[in-house]
């Protein structure tokens, strides 16, 4: 059961981050050509794969399981809370939704300003594509490493992230436009809730706390945090409309 949740969490996280990365790659492809964009993206993905291949086994074999669970649980919890917080602020209107169209326009303008080169792979375009894919992918790598090592499914988690990334890039390239219709905030909220559930479970288990029904309590935690997040969105929406009424001129 927990394997399915791990795969789902990794796949969703990868999808969210790769939609953002693809927007940058499309901007590079439009201005500097697909070759530059693809070389940049593949180089970044290879760098990320090396990080997982080096750090993953080192974590599994070099750190005792209880210490690993506590440290990984704490990192997952902090990461998840940051994602959920951002998603709640966006859902309640206190923070602007991520706008892929605006990011695309900005990248295209900046890349056009940099001019063209005679080489088949443009160095500026390559840097933008590499940096965009690497930075967005790094969050996925952290999630893959934390969820994968602690659950004992590092290879499955890595495969889930890679397949999702390729799927997002494939869909985006076929449609040849930025994927602004993807419900990114809802997906971010879903991943965040899963991350805080795993983070709570592992950090407590690492500190010798025994959960009732073992792994099954993760499902209970997901349900509890989903309801809590929904209530927090309602609370912020209510507070915001009260605030708007106070500020509005009579």
């Amino acid at each position, binding site marked *: 059961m927990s394997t399915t949740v791990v795969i789902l969490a990794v796949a969703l996280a990868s999808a969210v981050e790769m939609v953002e990365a693809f927007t940058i790659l499309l901007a590079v492809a439009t201005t500097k050509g697909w070759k530059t964009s693809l070389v940049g993206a593949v180089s970044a993905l290879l760098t990320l794969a090396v990080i997982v291949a080096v750090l993953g086994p080192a974590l599994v074999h070099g750190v005792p399981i209880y210490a690993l669970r*506590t440290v990984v649980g*704490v*990192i997952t*919890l*902090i*990461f998840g*809370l*940051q994602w*959920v*917080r951002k998603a*709640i*602020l966006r859902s309640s209107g*206190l923070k602007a939704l991520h706008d892929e169209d605006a990011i695309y326009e900005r990248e295209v303008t900046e890349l056009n300003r940099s001019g063209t080169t005679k080489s088949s792979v443009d160095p500026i375009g390559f840097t933008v594509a590499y940096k965009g894919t690497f930075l967005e992918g790094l969050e996925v790598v*952290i999630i893959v490493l934390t969820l994968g090592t602690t659950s004992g499914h590092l290879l499955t988690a890595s495969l889930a992230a890679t397949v999702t990334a390729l799927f997002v890039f494939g869909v985006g390239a076929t449609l040849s436009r930025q994927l602004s219709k993807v419900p990114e905030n809802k997906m971010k909220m879903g991943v965040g809730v899963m991350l*805080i559930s795993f983070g*709570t479970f592992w*950090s*407590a288990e690492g*500190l*010798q*706390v*025994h*959960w*009732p029904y073992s792994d099954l*309590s993760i499902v209970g*935690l997901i349900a*509890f*945090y989903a309801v*809590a*997040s929904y209530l*927090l969105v309602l*609370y*912020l929406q209510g*507070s*915001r409309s009260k*605030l708007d009424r106070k500020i509005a001129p009579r």
Partner: protein
Amino acid sequence: MRIVRGFGRFIWDLLIGETPGITAGVATLVVALGVSDLLDVSVPYLFAPLVVVVTLFFSLRHQLKGTSK
């Protein structure tokens, strides 16, 4: 030295960054769980989700207050 400083900054941004309240809440949780283990509390697993939700609530309320100013 620049690489070490850059790495330190990266870790700081990743784990603390704009949300030090969240990190403080999680640190409180770890301490509470450690203490509950020492004191042999009967249902320590109930602490964890409560501390997490309270941490999230205060972090969001802090943001709301910041926005209203």
